[in-house]
């Protein structure tokens, strides 16, 4: 019988195969930065501003201390402009004449031992003149509400659709409320850590724990006065990141690189937990104000939102966090008249930064709490109201984007409500009934999450992936995935390997996906925004397909088996050497975006989710127990169901912490007040609820094989679902996160007093 080559279904995509790095991790063999030997390495330490705002008059070394044993770096040692490029070049690597937050670096010290470096720091006197400081979100929110000119705006942006003010004036009913949430710490279990080594050619090699290797290259090349190719960056195993290792490692890379270049030897900094919580970025605190109008028939007439983020001392990435926030602040519901006013304000605190969801959880916290308020005002149940008003295929978003494809609404909403029998359970809610032993409540939230970068961001960065045909081992040819996406626990190496194997039509054993090293990989963009599987994965899939075609052309025949691949690939490698093919991501045809007016297609696609929370509240102690979460998600084509579910479970538990546990404020000295694991409390195995989770697949056809984002989605909607459930249980509407028994008590007393 003649052999026929058949196009077969993808073989690896869709399978819940074990992670490619699992074995190393359960054997304790994965090498994180602090596990690596650094021959002749010194330890670095950062000398920090003692108060939240001051003019730096000078640094006075103690003449009694032997400074010959250490290396000190100040702003004067920076060869180029003293800035981390980021978005506005405003943040110095090391403060020179003014510092804007307690803990801002004023000097760096390296020494053979960490003890000596710390000892030296104590002998360096910081001379400064203290200036007034603004420390909290509440202060800036008050300034905003009273049009106080003292408010320092780091950036602003609006979204307009129709005429929200006119529609509010005409509305049958108007519902108004404010919602706030504090900082949240990423609390990856591996603290921040990097090593820098001078290279022979005057450059520097930086390696360790990070999400975005090319950020370090492009944001430090000016300060280090080095061409990008002389800054080589490689990731080590990363022990969790969640956005916390997005922009912060660039700052840390600046510290170790400057020290290493001056000390002419490798320098390592690994933070201890206390330093890590005190001096690294957190989720932006938010204050939002919703004014919404309802029509008589229970549809939404207008949504007007003020959305204010506490950006901390410098802009860093806060503009983009706010953009994602405002794009989600009125998303999900049909409404012709929308106005969203987004603002980032300065406080004298550590710059706020990336954390899973990147502004969307803050926005959805307000919106989905407020939807319950609108439902009540309309005389409808929360689920009826959502089913009536949710966006579906063909509807238009606040930016005017028509949802043309891959719309998992209302499927996720309908399926979640059905799975948990919401209608039935809703009738059982206690609503603070006196005399009950326990109060029961159920609450729902529904949301979309823009997949990949905002607007035309993906087109602007020209993300690409490469596949190398090379020897995986002597005599064993295969495809090597070359991307700058990092493995930080989410499973990128595994998922990208699955996609590469399917692109090649080969077994997983003929594919390898090593940690990125900027000396070897093209820039596929940062490992953020739930874009890796969708955007970079699609590029890998495309590049692998091209590689296969190139080999088939070389051989003049199709490759139908692994054995044939081995023969043809070996012949190619022996004749020509390594072969690299690249694939570039392209936005769906017709994508239009105006970055100035925020009109157009704000994201190439959306993932969709629905969370239902069931809670029990103890009427005596007001202790809150989240008993069960039911959730459906549309993340497009699910590449690895086990890993995807792991992302959802882990994200939901982080969101549980955000909702009811994780509390961190700013003390009078401008420092975080819960700066140890003893005081910053996150969920343990004892705290987790029953979780009933499932997917509905609406593949995204413009990025084969059709995945959308998953990583951030589970962080988005749980807090409002819980707040809605708590109201159903207690009759108390909580509008500030985290919702603690203490806050419930205070609120109940206020209500009694009325």
């Amino acid at each position: 019988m003649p052999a026929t080559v058949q196009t077969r279904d993808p073989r690896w995509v869709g399978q819940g195969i074990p992670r490619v790095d699992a074995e190393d991790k359960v054997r304790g063999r994965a090498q994180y930065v602090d596990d690596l030997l650094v021959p002749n390495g010194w330890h670095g330490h950062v000398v920090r501003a003692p108060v939240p705002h001051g003019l730096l008059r000078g640094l006075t070394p103690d003449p009694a201390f032997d400074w010959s044993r250490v290396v000190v770096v100040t702003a004067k040692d920076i060869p180029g402009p003293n800035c981390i490029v980021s978005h506005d070049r405003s943040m110095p690597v090391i403060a020179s004449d003014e510092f804007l937050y307690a803990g801002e670096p004023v000097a760096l010290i390296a020494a053979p031992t960490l003890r000596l470096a710390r000892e030296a720091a104590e002998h360096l006197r910081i001379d400064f003149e203290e200036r007034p400081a603004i420390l909290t979100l509440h202060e800036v929110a008050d300034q905003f509400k009273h049009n106080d000119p003292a408010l320092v705006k780091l950036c602003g942006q609006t979204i307009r659709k129709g005429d929200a003010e006119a529609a509010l004036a005409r509305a049958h009913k108007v519902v108004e409320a404010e919602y706030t949430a504090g900082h949240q710490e990423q609390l990856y279990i591996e603290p921040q850590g990097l090593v820098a080594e001078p290279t022979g050619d005057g450059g520097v090699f930086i390696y360790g724990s990070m999400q975005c290797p090319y950020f370090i290259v492009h944001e430090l090349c000016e300060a280090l006065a080095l061409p990008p190719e002389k800054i080589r960056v490689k990731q080590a195993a990363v022990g969790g990141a969640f956005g916390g290792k997005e922009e912060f490692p660039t700052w840390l890379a600046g510290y170790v690189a400057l020290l290493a270049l001056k000390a002419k030897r490798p320098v390592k900094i690994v933070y201890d937990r206390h330093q890590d919580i005190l001096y690294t970025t957190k989720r932006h605190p938010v204050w939002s104000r919703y004014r919404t109008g309802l029509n008589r028939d229970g549809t939404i007439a207008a949504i007007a939102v003020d959305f204010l983020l506490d950006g901390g001392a410098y802009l860093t990435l806060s503009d983009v966090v706010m953009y994602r926030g405002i794009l989600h602040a009125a998303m999900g519901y049909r409404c012709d008249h929308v106005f969203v006013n987004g603002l980032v304000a300065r406080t004298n605190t550590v710059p706020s930064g990336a954390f899973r969801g990147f502004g969307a959880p803050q926005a959805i916290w307000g919106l989905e709490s407020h939807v319950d308020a609108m439902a009540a005002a309309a005389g409808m149940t929360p689920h009826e109201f959502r089913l009536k008003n949710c966006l579906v295929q063909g509807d238009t978003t606040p930016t005017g984007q028509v949802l043309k494809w891959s719309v998992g609404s209302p499927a996720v909403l309908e399926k979640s409500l059905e799975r948990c029998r919401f209608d039935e359970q809703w009738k059982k809610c206690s609503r603070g009934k006196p005399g009950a032993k326990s109060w029961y409540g159920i609450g729902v939230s529904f949301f979309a999450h823009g997949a990949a970068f905002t607007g035309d961001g993906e087109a602007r960065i020209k993300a690409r992936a490469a596949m190398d045909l090379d020897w995986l081992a002597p005599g064993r040819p295969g495809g090597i995935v070359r991307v700058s996406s990092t493995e930080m626990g989410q499973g990128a190496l595994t998922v990208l390997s699955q996609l590469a194997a399917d692109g090649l039509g080969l077994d997983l054993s003929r594919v390898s996906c090593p940690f990125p090293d900027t000396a070897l990989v093209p820039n596929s963009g940062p490992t953020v925004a739930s874009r890796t599987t969708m955007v970079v994965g699609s590029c890998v899939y495309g590049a692998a397909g091209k590689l296969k075609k190139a080999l088939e052309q070389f051989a003049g025949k199709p490759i139908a088996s692994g054995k044939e691949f081995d023969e043809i690939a070996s012949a190619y490698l022996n004749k020509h050497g390594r072969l690299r093919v690249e694939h570039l991501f392209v936005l769906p045809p017709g994508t239009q975006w105006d970055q100035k007016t925020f009109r157009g297609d704000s994201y190439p696609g959306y993932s969709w989710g629905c969370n239902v929370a069931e809670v029990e509240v103890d009427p005596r102690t007001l202790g809150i127990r989240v008993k069960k979460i039911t959730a459906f998600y549309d993340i497009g084509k699910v590449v690895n169901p086990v890993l995807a579910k792991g992302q959802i479970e882990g994200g939901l538990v982080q969101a549980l912490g955000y909702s009811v546990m994780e509390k961190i404020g700013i003390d009078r000295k401008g420092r975080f007040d819960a700066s140890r694991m003893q005081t910053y409390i996150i969920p343990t195995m004892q705290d987790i609820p029953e979780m009933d989770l499932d997917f509905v697949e609406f593949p995204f056809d413009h990025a084969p094989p059709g995945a959308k984002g998953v990583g951030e989605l589970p962080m988005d909607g749980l807090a409002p679902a819980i707040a809605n459930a708590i109201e159903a249980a207690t009759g108390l509407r909580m509008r500030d996160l985290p919702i603690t028994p203490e806050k419930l008590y205070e609120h109940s007393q206020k209500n009694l007093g009325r």
Partner: protein
Amino acid sequence: MSTVKRTWVVNGERWTVDLPPGRRLLDALRNDLGLKGTKEGCGEGECGACTVLLNGEPVTSCLIAAGQVPDGAEIMTVEGLEKTEGGRILQEAYIERGAAQCGFCIPGMIMSSFALLSKTRTPDDAEIREAHAGNICRCTGYEKIIEAVKLAANRWPEK
């Protein structure tokens, strides 16, 4: 500086170490013995990433002064797991169920699992949660770790 000499049985092998004053058991294992599998996540006994078994009991090695661990003590770290049948079963179960994500908490987590299953072959849900309450994981939401422990319990060797 005066040091103290201690001889322990670590993962079944005899080791003699010279310990300067104040050295933590965690540092002795990582730096003196080169067993880098055990991790430091907080240095104050909260996260559990540094959990090892000391004479069969799970302890946070960042809180123990190495000099106070007596001669002859038996210590087991993540590197020792694969030398035991139960350890291999646990590792397989963790892999199969997708219990490791970033993996940084796992060297401690899996030692708590091992200590539990070594004592209680058929733990119930509450016992599993209690046994791992001192191990913080920020990635997984714990579900898959619980599944892995249950799977390993099913396969645990008869005495």
